[in-house]
C-alpha cells in the first residue's frame, strides 16, 4: 500500500472513478493540463482526454450549472471550484436546482453531481481563499455535504460521493492537503456517506469535529490523555445529513461534549449539534455542551489567522472545564 497525501488520495479517487465509469466528467478552472491549482486533477486530462477533463471558462456559476445539466443527462460531473471563497456564485444553482430537482420533478429528473472545493483557513492564502461555509451548505435540503479528514477517507468518501445518486458538495481541507499522509489502497472501495467515524474511543468527554480541525482535536485528545482524561473523538465526515446516532451514542457514554470547528461561531454547524444534544441527549449530560470555534469575524488574512482558528490549547481547556463538572 502506498503512502499518499490527502490531495493525492483525491486524485486517485478521481482517476479510479473515471476509469470505472465513462460517464464521470471532471470540469473546472485549470483542471486540465495544469492539473488544478492544488494538483488534485493532475494527469487526468492526459489520461482521459480534454472532453472528460474539461477546462471551463472562469465562471463559477456556470461550472455548477453545467454540472446540473450534465447530471440530469446522466453524466456524473465532478466540478472543481478553485477556492471556497469562489463557491458563493454556485449557491443559487445548489439551492434552486441541484438539491431539489429530484423533488421538484418527483423523481423524473435527478442530479448525481459532485462539486469539490478546498475548504478552510490556515494556509496563508490571499483574501477570500480561506472560507469555511459548510454550515451554509448544510442548511440546504436535498444536498449532501462531505468533508474528509484523512487520505483514506478522502479516497473512500469521494468515490462514494461520485457514485451517490444525489448532489454532493465535497469540501477538501486545504490545510492538510499535503500535511495529512496515510496508506491508501486504490481498491475502488467507497466508504459510507452519512456516517461518522469514531477516531478514538474514550469515556470522559466527546470531541466532535470534521476536516482539518481533527488535527488539533486529535492532538488535544493526546494532551488530555496525559492528564488522565479519556476523550472520544468523532469525525463527523458527512454534515448533511449527519450521523445523529453516533453523536448521541457517544454523549450517552461520556456525558460531556466539545464541538470544534474553524468556521465562525454564530449559526455554525456546532450549534446544530448542540441543539440536537439539548433535545435528545440532555439527560445524559454532566456538563454544558461547549463549542470551540472561529470567531464571529471575517476570517482574517495570514497574520491573524492562527489567532482565529481553534488551537489545541483552546480545545484542551474546554474539555478540561467540561470534566470539572460531575
Amino acid at each position, binding site marked *: 500500500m502506498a503512502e499518499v497525501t490527502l490531495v493525492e488520495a483525491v486524485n486517485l479517487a478521481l482517476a479510479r472513478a473515471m476509469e470505472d465509469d465513462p460517464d464521470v466528467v471532471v470540469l473546472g478552472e485549470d483542471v486540465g493540463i495544469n492539473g488544478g491549482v492544488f494538483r488534485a486533477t493532475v494527469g487526468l486530462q492526459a489520461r482521459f482526454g480534454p472532453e472528460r477533463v474539461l477546462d471551463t471558462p472562469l465562471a463559477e456559476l456556470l461550472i455548477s450549472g453545467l454540472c446540473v445539466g450534465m447530471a440530469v443527462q446522466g453524466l456524473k460531473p465532478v466540478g472543481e471550484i478553485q477556492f471556497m471563497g469562489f463557491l458563493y456564485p454556485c449557491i443559487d444553482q445548489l439551492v*434552486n436546482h441541484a438539491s431539489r430537482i429530484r423533488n421538484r420533478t418527483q423523481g423524473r429528473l435527478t442530479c448525481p453531481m459532485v462539486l469539490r472545493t478546498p475548504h478552510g483557513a490556515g494556509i496563508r492564502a490571499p483574501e477570500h481563499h480561506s472560507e469555511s461555509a459548510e454550515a451554509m451548505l448544510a442548511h440546504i435540503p436535498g444536498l449532501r455535504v462531505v468533508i474528509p479528514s484523512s487520505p483514506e477517507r478522502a479516497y473512500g468518501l469521494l468515490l462514494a460521493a461520485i457514485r451517490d445518486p444525489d448532489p454532493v458538495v465535497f469540501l477538501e481541507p486545504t490545510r492538510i492537503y499535503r500535511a495529512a499522509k496515510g496508506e491508501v489502497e486504490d481498491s475502488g472501495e467507497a466508504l459510507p456517506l452519512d456516517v461518522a467515524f469514531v477516531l478514538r474511543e474514550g469515556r470522559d468527554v466527546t470531541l466532535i469535529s470534521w476536516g482539518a480541525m481533527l488535527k488539533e482535536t486529535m492532538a488535544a485528545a493526546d494532551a488530555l490523555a496525559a492528564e488522565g482524561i479519556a476523550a472520544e473523538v468523532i469525525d463527523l465526515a458527512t454534515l448533511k445529513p449527519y450521523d445523529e446516532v453516533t453523536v448521541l451514542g457517544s454523549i450517552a457514554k461520556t456525558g460531556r461534549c466539545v464541538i470544534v470547528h474553524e468556521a465562525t461561531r454564530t449559526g455554525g454547524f456546532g450549534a446544530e449539534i448542540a441543539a440536537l444534544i439539548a433535545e435528545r441527549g440532555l439527560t445524559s449530560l454532566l456538563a454544558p455542551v461547549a463549542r470551540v470555534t472561529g470567531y464571529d469575524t471575517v476570517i482574517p488574512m495570514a497574520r491573524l489567522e492562527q489567532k482565529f482558528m481553534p488551537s489545541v490549547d483552546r480545545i484542551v481547556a474546554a474539555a478540561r472545564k467540561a470534566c470539572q463538572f460531575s
Partner: protein
Amino acid sequence: MADGGLPVIARFEVRHRNYLAPDGSINRPLPAFASDASLLASLYRAMVLLRNFDRKAVALQRTGRLGTYAVSLGQEAVSVGIASAMREEDVLLPSYRDNGALIWRGVKLEEILLFWGGDERGNHFSGPVQDFPFCVPVGSQAPHAAGVAYAFKLRKEPRVAVCMYGDGATSKGDVYEAMNFAGVHKLPVVFVATNNQWAISVPLRLQTASETLAQKSIAAGFIGEQVDGSDVVAVRAAAEDAIAAARDGQGPRFIEAVTYRLGDHTTSDDASRYRPEEEVQARWKEEPIARLRAFLAGQKMWSKADEEQLAAECHERVEAAVERYLATEPRGGETMFDYLYADLPEAYVAQRRQLAGEGDG
C-alpha cells in the same frame, strides 16, 4: 478607415426575419413548411388552445383555485413556433411562461394546472421525460442547457437543447456564462430570448442599452438572429434553421423573438400601474393569432366553421383538464420527503414519521 486611421477589424450584423405582416399578408416568399396547410393549422390550433387555457387558468386563480399564473397572451407564437421545430428527443429547458412549448411537447393541461396549483406532481409530466420543468429563477436554466448540450456532444448524440428565457433574463450573468461556454465548445444548443418588451415593470430600455438582444450572441461567438415573434411562421422558420445547424455540429444559435406581452406579468401583477393603455391597444393589432388566422383565411385554409369547431374543442379539452386537476387528491404531508434523496437518510426518518402522524417528533 475609422477615426485616427485605425483599421476596422470586425463588423457584425443582425438580421430580422418576418414573413407575415400584422394583417396576414405576405412580406417575403414563405419557407417550405408553410405549404403544408395541416401544419399551419396545427400551429394555429396550438396557439388558440393556449389562449383558451390561459383564460381559464386566470379564472381559476381569481376564484382561489390556482396559484399565481403567468399568461402567454400576445406571445403564443414564440413557444408554439419554437417547440414545433424540435424533435421529441431534443431537450426543452423552458421558463415559467413557456406553457405553449410544453403543451406542444405533450405535457397535459392538468399537469400544468397542478404545477401552478402548487403540486410538484405537475412536474412529473407526460412530455418527453428528459425535458426540464419550468424554471422560476430567471435565466438560471441557461447553464443547464449548456450542460445538457455538452452531454449530447460528448456522447455524439444528434440532439439539441433548446433553452427559453425572457428579455430580462438576458441581463443575468448566468445567461451570458452559458452562451459563452456554448460558443467555446460549439455545443448543440439554441438559446431563445422572448423579448416581450417588459420584465415585470422594467422596460427593455432600462434592461439594456443594446440595440438588439440578438447581438448579445456576437460576443459569445455565434449567430444571433431577430425574428418577428408575433409571426409564428418566422419563429418556426428561425427555429428550424437554428436547430438544424446545431444538430449538424455547427454550434449554438441565438434567437431573439420580438413580441409583446399583452397581459399582466402574472396574476399577481397589475400592468396598468406602469404601462400606458394606448401602447397595449396599439400592440393588439400585431398579435399572432389574428395574424395567422387572417393569412389562413386569405389562403382558404381556414373557415368560420373550422373556427367554431376549434373553439368547441378547446373548451371541451380545457374543461376536462380542469375537472381532472380539481379532482386530484392532495398528498399526505410525509410525501414531501419522498423525492428529497434517492433513499431517505436515516436522520430524516423521524421527521417523516411526524408528518405522517406516526410520531411525536
